[in-house]
């Protein structure tokens, strides 16, 4: 037993070094974007030519860029609202609705993770053309609701599942209607997860390119604007400055969402620690990374 533990520790040392190297591999390419965004050269190459803020200056007063930013923000806010609303209702009914329909909807809602983005894009392109409004902001919103849906469903589902069943039963026992129980008990208890799901859905939409590419009308989103700039070698430094800003915002929002989600889970974990380790709650599946 003792030797086994010692071995495990030594293995842990090697593994620890490996994990460190893995993190370097994960972050190094991404961190090159901020690095070269401050480099006083049009080319992203070593040696570095000196520090400049010139590329950030080119971002200011660029009307195409600010238009794309506004489009992305509006689409992100609406799509995240829609995806969060769907995530809340779908996972709630999946857990408490006890109907085959609710379970089916929940299963289909997690399906987009098994459909490549290009197919989501073309299927919605056909749909919006059939519906009459064609590629437009609304079309992108619909696409982003789909792309963000698996995330919001999984985040909300793990949250609702972590609320002790007795709380909801007590509310119903005391005569609260379904609606009151949902609105006054379950929603407030899951508020951190709702905000977290919203932020993650917003991020998904804000950074999404593949689906938006098919559904954009005349107003590009920010990733589509970046894509259009990638063709011009001269605008690469500007793209890197813009990319740095986007990365910074994404990191901050993702960090806040993560903190909120953990805080929410920790709050209910304390009263019922045993119920969480049951296998049905760690239902192994595609998106179970949110169950930590």
């Amino acid at each position: 037993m003792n030797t086994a533990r010692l071995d495990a520790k030594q293995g842990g040392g090697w593994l620890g070094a490996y994990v460190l190297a893995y993190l370097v591999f994960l972050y190094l390419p991404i961190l090159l974007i901020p690095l070269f965004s401050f480099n006083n050269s049009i080319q992203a190459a070593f040696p570095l030519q000196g520090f400049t803020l010139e590329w950030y200056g080119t971002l200011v007063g660029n009307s195409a860029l600010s238009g794309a930013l506004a489009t992305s923000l509006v689409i992100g806010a609406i799509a995240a609202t829609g995806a969060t609303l769907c995530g809340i209702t779908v996972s709630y009914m999946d857990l408490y609705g006890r109907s085959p329909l609710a379970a089916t909807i929940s299963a289909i809602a997690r399906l987009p993770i098994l459909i490549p983005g290009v197919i989501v894009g073309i299927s919605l392109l056909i749909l919006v053309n059939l519906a009459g409004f064609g590629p437009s902001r609304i079309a992108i919103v619909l696409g982003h609701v789909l792309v963000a849906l698996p995330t919001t469903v999984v985040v909300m589902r793990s949250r609702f599942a972590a609320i002790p069943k007795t709380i909801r039963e007590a509310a119903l026992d005391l005569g609260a209607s379904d609606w009151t129980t949902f609105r006054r008990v379950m929603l407030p208890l899951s508020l951190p997860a709702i905000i977290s799901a919203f932020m993650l859905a917003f991020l998904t939409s804000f950074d999404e390119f593949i689906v938006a590419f098919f559904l954009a009308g005349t107003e590009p989103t920010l990733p589509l604007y970046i894509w259009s700039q990638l063709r011009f070698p001269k605008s690469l430094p500007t793209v890197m400055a813009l990319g740095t800003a986007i990365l910074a915002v994404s990191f901050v929002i993702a960090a806040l969402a993560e903190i909120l989600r953990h805080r929410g889970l920790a709050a209910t974990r304390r009263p019922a620690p045993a119920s969480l380790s049951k296998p049905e709650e760690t239902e192994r599946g595609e998106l179970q990374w949110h169950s930590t």
Partner: protein
Amino acid sequence: MSTIVVTQSLPETRSSPAFRFAMLLPGGLVTFLLILFALGLVFFLAFRGNDGSLLGAGFTLANFVTVATDPLYWTVTLRSLGIAGLVTLATVVTAYPVAYYLAFHAGRRRGLLLFLLTLPFWTSYLLRVFAWKIVLAYNGVLNSALIESGIWSEPTLAFLNTPAAVVVTLAHAYSPFAILPIYVALDTIPKSLLEAASDLGAKPFTSFRRIVLPNSMPGVLAAALVVFVPTVGDYVTPALVGGPASTMIGTLIQAEFGKANDWPFGAALAVAVMLVILAVVLVVRFADRRYGSRT
């Protein structure tokens, strides 16, 4: 008597139809209209002839005949499968030790590590691919760094616009997908199993091979699936770092709905991709069942 009635009617039977309807409506609309109906349209369109109109004309199998008989589509499909397969293998094999460390050795650093490993997932996919473009370019980071350090005297074209560049870029972009399912599977292995194995004299490697690995297979398969699916249909990475030699099936679908403007044929290609994915899912299901007897 009355208490019995109350407990029997608790809690689901009392739910009002209006509440159920309102709660099922948003998800129902999205799943049935935006997912099922929209995918149904793709299937429908795949069997139509192209006459320039939105839903095509007449019913035909010609699109599928072309997909099945034209060697171009076989080449591209096999290449997509090859690239996606390599990416999946690379991500799963490199992610496994990370997931293992998280599950068994991370201790108090686990939360922070998990956060750091998933954070790139929430950053722009386009920017992550773009980062690799500046790394691999002819006068890019890697070439200039190699010359700067004296390893090479001339920049090489060998990095950008190769299928290898696509594999590396995609493996980097989808690595967080692979870590988490494996980690969850490893984390749910009862520690008592490992203790029992070591008590009964199993060496660490034996208990890894006989207990940990088989028990984590569902996570490995789930990881393989979530990496394989988005990569097999990807068209951004081949376009940015792949060059013409690594055109993938997603590129062709995108072209049919763009420049080529033959939507029914593009839909048929999409159906073919979905069939390939379905086949992979079924294989994974089958493999999953073999390892299904978890305790």
